[in-house]
């Protein structure tokens, strides 16, 4: 005699909705939390997850995963592997720990929101597993990052990042508050499990796992591949929600997908892009960021949205053009404003590296080469000061990232364009046309001060770089610097330095 099969009884676990008598349905599932919108309430009765799991199965599987993930960690604890890791790779892990640990926790809150306000009992149950999964990811990431705080204080930002007003976490909170913690659950189920988890986390997790192994960081690879095995389960909430929304309100479905795709693409260009194309040692690079995006995100995304009868987002051409520019501009911005980072950004523009970049991005030299030459010449002239910031970059009012995207004009020149908009007596500036469009549609929520607005309003005192770094929570033991200037400048020593005069006069106007 064995236990009953799951199929024989699980319908009772899923069938837990009832009709309210003592309170209004609208009070239990308020519109802005539950977001049924144009979808008739009863349409949610057909919500069904593709991936069925029960509580006893869940805890049994997860116990095993936890045991093996922590066993690998314990086995590696005494090795000297960490000390031998490349600085560029370490920077990628610092960025990951600081940029991801608390985002996993934001996802705990998002899943809890769906566990409360989801419009079908089975959905709420899936979200109950989902919140546990995300808690696992938050805890394992935090714990693994904590291990290194004694070796390098930058790992303190594993926990600290999102408690600060550093510009990177401001941009990321802005994104994830909007797509994970605060939206109505219908939008949330599409933005978090669907666009983000079935799409973009692949970028961070699959690519980074491969890079970790290449770089000899088995511990890190072990952690993120173990995390990735959970996604298949809870990301299933997106599909059934999408099916119902598309049937009743395809315009909204399209908008929710488009908006979250765009926001995710901007954030990944800022973080994953530089990690893949600049920080990873040349000999360990498998694919460029663009190639990875094409293979893992774009093909899959297009395939998925077409399955649901949706169209490519309206911004598609702008997005595709941005694959050649966004992350290069952002990398230069990150490097230039390196004292604001909790990692050590490698410039990654030695001759060999530039050849690789030029091969992968045929306009790279034309758009970025000269600017890096200016940096190189200053460093070779022992003038590192000239390559450090004295002011702030202009930040986009939508994505809160530096407005630094070069686009090509009709005459062939490359310029950083300002997309602006006047609203309520104020002019807002955006990095891209799509950021401007999304802001306009979402302005009730996202009409919010950027770091620059705060600075100009006098909220940051004193109004200088020291004051700004202090406002950002940056301490001298953490603030980022290039780990090895010589590594990428020595190829160019002794050449005529054409960029010097320009850089000392206008070094802060990038």
């Amino acid at each position, binding site marked *: 005699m064995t236990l*009953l099969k799951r199929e024989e009884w699980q319908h009772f676990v899923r069938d837990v909705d009832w009709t309210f008598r003592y*309170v209004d349905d609208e009070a239990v599932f308020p519109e802005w939390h539950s977001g049924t919108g144009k979808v008739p309430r009863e349409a949610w009765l057909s919500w069904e997850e593709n991936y069925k799991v029960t509580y006893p199965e869940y805890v049994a599987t*997860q116990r095993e995963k936890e045991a093996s993930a922590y066993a690998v960690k314990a086995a590696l604890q005494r090795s000297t592997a960490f000390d031998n890791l490349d600085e560029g790779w370490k920077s990628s892990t610092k960025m990951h720990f600081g940029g991801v640990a608390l985002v996993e926790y934001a996802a705990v809150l998002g899943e809890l929101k769906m566990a409360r306000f989801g419009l079908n009992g089975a959905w709420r149950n899936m979200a109950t597993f989902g919140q546990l999964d995300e*808690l696992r990811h938050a805890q394992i990431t935090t714990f693994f990052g*904590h291990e290194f705080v004694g070796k390098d204080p930058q790992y303190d930002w594993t926990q600290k990042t*999102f408690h600060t007003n550093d510009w990177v976490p401001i941009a990321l909170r802005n994104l994830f508050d909007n797509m994970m913690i605060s939206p109505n659950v219908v939008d949330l189920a599409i933005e978090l499990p669907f666009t983000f988890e079935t799409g973009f986390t692949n970028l961070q997790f699959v690519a980074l796992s491969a890079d970790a192994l290449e770089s000899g960081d088995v511990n890190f690879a072990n952690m993120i591949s173990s995390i990735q095995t959970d996604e298949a389960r809870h990301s299933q909430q997106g599909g059934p929600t999408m099916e119902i929304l598309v049937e009743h309100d395809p315009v909204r479905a399209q908008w929710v997908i488009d908006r979250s795709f765009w926001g995710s693409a901007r954030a990944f260009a800022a973080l994953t892009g530089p990690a893949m194309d600049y920080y990873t040692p040349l000999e360990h690079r498998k694919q460029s960021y663009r190639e990875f995006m094409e293979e893992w995100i774009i093909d899959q995304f297009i395939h998925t949205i077409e399955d649901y009868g949706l169209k490519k987002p309206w911004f598609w051409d702008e997005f595709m053009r941005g694959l050649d520019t966004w992350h290069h501009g952002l990398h230069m911005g990150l490097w230039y404003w390196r004292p604001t980072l909790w990692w050590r950004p490698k410039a990654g523009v030695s001759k060999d590296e530039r050849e690789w970049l030029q091969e992968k991005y045929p306009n790279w030299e034309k758009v970025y080469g000269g600017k890096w030459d200016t940096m190189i010449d200053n460093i070779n002239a022992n003038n590192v000061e000239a390559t450090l910031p004295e002011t702030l970059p202009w930040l986009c009012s939508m994505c809160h990232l530096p407005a630094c995207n070069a686009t090509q004009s009709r005459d062939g020149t490359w310029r950083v364009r300002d997309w602006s908009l006047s609203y309520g007596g104020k002019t807002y500036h955006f990095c891209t046309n799509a950021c401007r469009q999304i802001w306009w549609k979402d302005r009730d929520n996202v009409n919010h001060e950027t770091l620059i607005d705060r600075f100009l309003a006098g909220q940051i005192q004193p109004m200088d770089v020291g004051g700004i770094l202090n406002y950002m929570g940056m301490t001298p033991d953490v603030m980022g610097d290039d780990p090895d200037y010589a590594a990428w400048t020595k190829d160019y020593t002794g050449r005529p330095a054409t960029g010097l005069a320009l850089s000392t006069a206008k070094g802060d106007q990038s």
Partner: protein
Amino acid sequence: MTGQPRKARPRRTFSAFGDVRRMPSEYEIVTHGQNWTMRANRPSAFEHNPSSPPNLWFLTYRENSPLKAEDWEQFRDPDSMTYKTYVNLQAEAETKTAGVLEEFAEANADSALTPGQVALLGSMFTPSRYLLHGCQQVEAYIGYMAPTSYVTNAASFATADYLRRVTLTAYRTRELQLAHPDSGIGTAERGIWENDEAWQPARQAIEKALIAYDWGEAFTALNLVLAPTIDDVLVRQFTEVSRDNGDQLSWLLLSFLQADNDRRNRWSAALAGFCLQQKPENADVLRRWIARWTPVADAAAHGLGRLLETRPEHGRAADEVAAGAKAAREAFHARLFEGLEAAGEGKRAG
């Protein structure tokens, strides 16, 4: 801006713990300061327009909750539960449950149940999954809104515990349906939940708790009042009556679940105690909410008591059931306020 000397003294832990002499535990490392919507010096919870609907919701029901503390990050779950310890604990517990289920199925125990006990199971135990799911939702809401990850995580596990309980109830529903196909078990539950008079006070309680949106009131309503009262009926008294009626299996299975309830009671009592310690004014806030939810809970216990009284061969009087549940809750509350009164006495004496 360059050439800043790097400090030589290595850190031992996250700076968020301040200058601590004691190394934080693994539980503290993975739980502390995880919720960025509670970060210091924030203009609003979310990186949005401060008057956006989500910001106003959190302002109203979390920041402006009458339940206040100087520093929520000081709260600790007495069980120090982490994800890893939770899945270990519950995987172990579920193995035990599965063993019992298998053994009793082998012995064909369900076919030997008395008609009265089958009636009790079908009127009280199997329909309870609706109530428990409602509790699961409220617990998730507490986790969503709580002002520290220390509380959110405890509520996260408690939410999952309710799912565990619904899952076991569902499994048993199917077994009982197979053993007693004409009993209505497996088909009648929703009708009973929505129409049986005995269930209506409990249904009213959970429907109202679902719209108690102040996070502190939601916590008080469910974890301090409704759950300790109703669990005394649905778990302790139900198992006792089941055993009196020869149903060893129900007695065993639900006794196992008591461990989850006890754990929830431990952190809930600790949280109430923490609130009282942080701000003595919280005593009035908690008492006011407890007073609001107590009659609701008592009515629910009495309604369910009628099932214990009337269904099985050897029943228990509804008044006795209600009194027992009330006593259990009061004993629990005495624990909460004990420290405060002792402190108050101490102050007066001093």
